């Protein structure tokens, strides 16, 4: 069954392909390499999860796709982002604005402050629809009502004329999702969409995103630091650490056979219902300062298995099996010893 799924997935068309993306921030203290050579693909209809600690470059990757990196101090210094065959990094401002909100939409972390307080929610959704679909005010309002119904806002005719402060956090996130989906985007980027919500609302919102993904046929790039969410939502996962993807694999392998020590550490530090433990495992140390990265593999100071080569040399991202990529010397060594074929990606 797994095999068929994999095959089906490979046959799907690539929607977004990021190649060797480098986004750096030039600050007074030095250059912060927030994203340093990230590559991945998202197929049509796929949900890709990006996990990592704060400062690992998840959000910067997302903002780079949208070309919303604040400049100065940030700049995309290298790489290509192909979306539907076009390199987004080569587009004029005007062209990228037509893609934002229409083809690629984004849901942000903070629903409480993501809506303009001086406008009603109906107006704000209507604005996006008018902007991208050339509808007039009346039609836009009709469409806004429609889409608010889809995202499950009760009593829409009344709610549409509410100001954001009159809605609860979950409600507002639904409005944000409605706004993001109002122009039928092909890619939805959700940047920690549930971090600011309480747990019951979290589940509702995630279910909603999943349902709508099916309904609208969009691909989703889900950024989170919660492996639980990843488990529920994603097809494939990219684990990020200090601006690099350290492991990329499908969801089953991630939980069953993680290869990178960091990923192993992450899955060990999730509380589990069925196993009783006294202390939850943690990964020792903290995320390195991006201004002063350790030499070689950035994870080596926190890694239990690090050896000499880790300190000296940055490992390459290598493909172990079909679409399972790992960036670790250890894995390479082990595979070599087993004489399994591997190839550069």
């Amino acid at each position, binding site marked *: 069954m797994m095999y068929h799924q994999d095959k089906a997935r490979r046959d799907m068309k690539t929607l977004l392909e990021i190649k060797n993306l480098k986004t750096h921030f030039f600050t007074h203290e030095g250059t912060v390499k927030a994203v340093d050579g990230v590559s991945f693909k998202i197929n049509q209809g796929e949900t890709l999860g990006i996990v990592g600690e704060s400062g690992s470059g998840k959000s910067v990757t997302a903002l780079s796709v*949208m070309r*919303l990196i604040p400049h*100065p101090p940030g700049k995309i210094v290298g790489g290509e982002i192909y979306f539907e065959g076009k390199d987004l990094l080569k587009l004029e401002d005007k062209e990228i*604005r*037509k*893609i*934002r*909100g*229409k083809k690629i*939409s*984004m849901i*942000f*972390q*903070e629903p409480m*402050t*993501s*809506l*303009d*307080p*001086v406008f*009603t929610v109906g107006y704000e959704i209507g*604005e*996006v629809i008018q*902007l*991208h679909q050339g509808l007039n005010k009346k039609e836009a309002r009709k469409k806004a009502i429609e889409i608010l119904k889809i995202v499950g806002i009760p009593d829409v005719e009344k709610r549409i*004329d*509410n*100001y954001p402060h*009159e809605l609860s956090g979950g409600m507002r996130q639904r409005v*944000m999702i409605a*706004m*993001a989906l109002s122009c039928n985007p092909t890619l939805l980027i959700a940047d920690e969409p549930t971090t600011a919500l309480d747990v019951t609302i979290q589940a509702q919102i995630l279910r909603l995103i999943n349902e709508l993904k099916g309904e609208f046929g969009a691909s989703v790039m889900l950024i989170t630091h919660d492996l639980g969410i990843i488990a529920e939502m994603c097809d494939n996962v990219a684990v990020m650490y200090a601006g690099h993807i350290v492991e990329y694999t499908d969801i089953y392998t991630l939980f069953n056979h993680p290869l990178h020590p960091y990923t192993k550490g992450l899955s060990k530090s999730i509380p589990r219902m069925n196993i009783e433990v006294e202390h939850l495992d943690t990964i020792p140390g903290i995320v390195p300062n991006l201004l002063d990265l350790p030499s070689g593999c950035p994870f080596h100071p926190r890694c239990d298995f690090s050896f000499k080569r880790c300190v000296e040399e940055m490992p390459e991202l290598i493909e172990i099996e079909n679409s399972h990529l790992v960036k670790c010397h250890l894995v390479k060594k082990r595979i070599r010893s087993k004489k399994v074929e591997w190839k550069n990606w």
Partner: protein
Amino acid sequence: MKRTRETKTHELVRRLKYNKSAVFGLAIVVILILCAIFANYIAPNSPTPSPPELFKALKPGFWSEDKVEGMPLGADAMGRCILSRILYGARVSLTAGFVAVGIAMILGITFGTLSGYYGGWVDALIMRIVDIMFAFPALLLAIVIVTVLGQGLDKAMIAIGIVYTPQMARIIRSSVLYIKEMEYIEVQKAIGSSDARIIFRHVLPNSIAPVIVYGTLMLASAILDCAALGFLGLGAQPPTPEWGAMLSKSYSYIVSGAWWAATFPGIAILFSVIGLNLLGDGLRDILDPRLKT
């Protein structure tokens, strides 16, 4: 949509009601505006009678045996009714105030928004010019500008408008700097809004509250400065009934006992400034969310 708008206005009115001094200020301002609008109906005499009735010159008002009929606050050195001139003067002063603040707002909001939103060298350039303008005392700068432009009430309004622009620009810049970092601006960028759209639809409406407050307070100082320019003979030219000019033409008669010619225009200036200041302070208390209780 209507319902919520109304409740917002209601809330504003309700909060205003509890602020006694703001209500007092509002009352003064309303009276002032009514006087200005209906000056030609309520004024007992013409502010600029021709030919001049010089035989009434410096006659006292109702408090004296020697009063002239129909001039309750007495006559000035040219025999003109002081009350009528003050009422018509309200028109001149308020217009001057509104025009000057209007100019300051248009220029200030334009430059302040550009400066705050785009930052970088645009910000640096505009803010250095603002710094230079701040280095001069306001009235002195206004005098310089009037000297360059030439005398007259219209020139005085422009001069005061220009002098107030830096303050306005600073105020709006600081609120734009705050607002542009808000998430909903990021969201607007993410849905593909252009800079112009973001500025006009989302940044400005959210940063305008302090401008309203300072605009009201500025109106008071604009009236005062306009009167000062009139007093110096650089603003309104005779026979325009402008409070400052009235004051300057009559203060020398105080020593000879005709105190009314200078005192009443002075009181008019005093009250309008007090009224506007109280209202402005009140509005600040109401609109500033940090002071909300």
